């Protein structure tokens, strides 16, 4: 029997699982990625470039810390008064001609959007990159409903055509290089002569999407900010695909997390200054669009906003974790993270990668999935330092680790886990001085067989292998400090004087 293998223009890897409910744990997902040198090179290059641009522009801003303080306080204020601002936004957006919908979870949001699209008899939709869309896994739902979703952000288009998944919040295709993009475009757009020059590739995307912009009557967007006092929505972008989607279609659906509100229009004076600098290392992104409801004769004449909860109100109720919702999705923490910079985004098994993903994803999953993510960090706090809204990510990571550990404690099957048993044993040994001394003596004898002539342990069995597979361990010394202290020559020190 002949099997016809269809040539797929992918980036040469299996599409990673980005649904946190079924994705493998972080260490499992990270392992093959760490062996993909091309991907690591691509990620390192992109994060280096953004970081250096960001650092340069932050250094030139004399009031950077004051801006951060304001941005942080403002986002915290919004969260503390979220109900009031959401109702204000709803009233003002409705008065301006928009329709506001509320969705408690991903399924409800998908249903609301599909209903609108059915009423519009939409066969195709053009989309602006939206984290919320990936969060509720909208594209597969659209596909099932027979609606073609066309991603219009260049990076999202590369991934959609390459059947790949985003690996960064701001630059989703940073793990793909120009040759890989060329392969994807050449095959999927039928352009065999295409060169791998980024300019040629961008031009190809421009002409590929132009007819879509001019013909598809329905668009879906996310939102960077919702303005409570005016019912406006703000979208921050670079390419102009956002403006196309916000201007040309007859119907626009905006899917926004409930935490996206700002009290006043003038609050953008803080947010726009910190966002572009942190996200792309620019003083201002090329295009920011702001609109309120419907404007007769200009832009879509039907406008829907879907306000998405999906676990956010739960996060809001928690003291330490609430700050997670201050996030403005600039991805500066991804670029700064020593873990993300090695693995890229796919290892996180969620559209939200990096440090913010490590705290947001498990919480959006009600701590029932993605429990390995809070451990995907060295707690170095580089993320906290660059965060424009001062989310103390390490603090939240530690809080979530405690919750994961508490979960494990209550599960009987975890009691046979070597790590659990090891911790129990350590707890017992460290509980009294004599037990500790005994454990030291026992350890010295037990480890002798594993210690090389150079005094280092290179390989341990079982649980210890988790340490020695990536680093060596110094063998235990023949004498502990206490033993030495007790037997030391007391006169030696005095004589030396």
């Amino acid at each position, binding site marked *: 029997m002949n099997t016809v293998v269809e040539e797929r223009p992918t980036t040469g890897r299996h599409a990673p699982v980005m649904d946190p409910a079924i994705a493998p744990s972080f260490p499992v997902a990270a392992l093959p990625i760490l062996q993909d040198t091309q991907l690591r090179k691509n990620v390192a290059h992109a994060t280096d470039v953004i970081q250096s641009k960001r650092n340069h522009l932050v250094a030139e801003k004399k009031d950077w810390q004051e801006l951060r303080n304001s941005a942080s*306080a403002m986002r915290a204020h919004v969260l503390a008064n979220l109900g009031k601002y959401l109702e204000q936004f709803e009233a003002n957006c409705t008065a301006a001609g928009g329709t506001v919908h509320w969705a408690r979870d991903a399924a409800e949001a998908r249903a609301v959007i599909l209903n609108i699209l059915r009423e519009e008899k939409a066969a195709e939709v053009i989309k602006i990159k939206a984290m919320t869309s990936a969060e509720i896994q909208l594209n597969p739902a659209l596909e099932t409903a027979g609606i073609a979703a066309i991603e219009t952000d260049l990076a999202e288009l590369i991934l959609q055509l390459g059947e790949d998944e985003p690996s960064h919040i701001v630059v989703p295709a940073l793990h793909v290089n120009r040759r890989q993009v060329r392969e994807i475009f050449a095959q999927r757009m039928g352009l065999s002569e295409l060169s791998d020059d980024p300019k040629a590739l*961008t031009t190809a995307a421009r002409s590929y999407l132009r007819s879509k912009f*001019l013909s598809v009557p329905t668009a879906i967007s996310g939102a960077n900010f919702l303005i409570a006092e005016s019912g406006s929505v703000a979208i921050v972008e670079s390419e102009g695909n956002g403006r196309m989607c916000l201007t040309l279609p007859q119907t626009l659906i905006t899917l926004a997390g409930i935490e996206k509100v700002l009290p006043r229009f003038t609050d953008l004076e803080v947010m726009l200054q910190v966002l572009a600098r942190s996200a792309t290392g620019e003083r201002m992104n090329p*295009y920011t669009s702001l609109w309120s409801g419907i404007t007769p004769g*200009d832009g879509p004449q039907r406008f829907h906003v879907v306000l998405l909860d999906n676990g956010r109100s739960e996060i809001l109720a928690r003291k330490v974790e609430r700050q997670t919702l201050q996030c403005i999705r600039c991805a500066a923490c991804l670029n700064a993270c020593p873990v993300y910079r090695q693995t890229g985004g796919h290892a996180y098994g969620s559209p939200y990668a990096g440090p913010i993903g490590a705290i947001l994803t498990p919480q959006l999953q009600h701590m029932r999935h993605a429990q390995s993510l809070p451990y995907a960090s060295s707690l170095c706090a580089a993320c906290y330092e660059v965060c424009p809204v001062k989310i103390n990510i390490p603090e939240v990571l530690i809080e979530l680790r405690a919750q994961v550990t508490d979960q494990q404690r209550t599960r009987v099957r975890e009691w046979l886990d070597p790590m659990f048993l090891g911790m129990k044993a350590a707890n017992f040994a460290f509980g009294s001085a004599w037990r500790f001394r005994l454990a030291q003596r026992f350890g010295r004898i037990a480890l002798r067989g594993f210690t090389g002539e150079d005094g280092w342990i290179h390989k341990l069995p079982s649980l210890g292998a988790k340490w020695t597979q990536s680093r060596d361990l110094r063998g235990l010394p023949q004498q502990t400090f206490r033993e030495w202290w007790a037997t030391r020559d007391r006169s030696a020190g005095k004589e030396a004087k």
Partner: protein
Amino acid sequence: MNVSPRQRILDRVCAATRADSNDYAGLPRSYIRAGALDQAGRLRLMTERLREYGAEVVASSPADLPSLVAHRLLESGRQHFAAPPGLPAEWLSRSLSWKVDNNLSHEEIEHCGGVVTAASAGIADSGTIVLHHGPLEGRRVITLLPDFHLCILRAAQIVETLPEYFACFPQAPRLATYISGPSATADIEMTRINGVHGPRFLSVIIVRDSPTSAEIQSSTNEAVRHDAI
């Protein structure tokens, strides 16, 4: 009883924040609001920033503006131009073909090679041009589909900092577009490429307010060397 998703979400949000109160007026705002530059300095900075983005910038006196507009448009190599309905007639050079936007179709606008508009404000610090889409700036679509955008900015409209812009316009306009250089992407290997979907070419004419003011004249000449055109 069937509680609506709206009520359910609001109930949860309010329950989560019941104990919190926090005053909007008390939010810390010790960042820099007002700039330190005089008008000449603002013009110089605006020009510099726009050029960093790859935009063309020239300065003009009010008297020279119509001929300079015509010149820039001819130089762009394009024939057909769109214009918002409120644009002064003297800016529309008779040697070129014009479509004034009284509800033009997308196809008609797409066929225009360029567009000429005024602006609502300029922000020097970030080189941002602000459109509030009034009669002189037109509908959003006319500054989106044509490949070339010539924008005319009055010197008095240029502020130095973003907070200064918001101080001038404390109420949200119905529509606004903030343009900081031509459409761009860095999605492929972080290489900045201008012109993905919006206009690929942005050209700005800054109109000096009082051509009699020698001070502005000299400093702008120094900063903006395109006056020779």
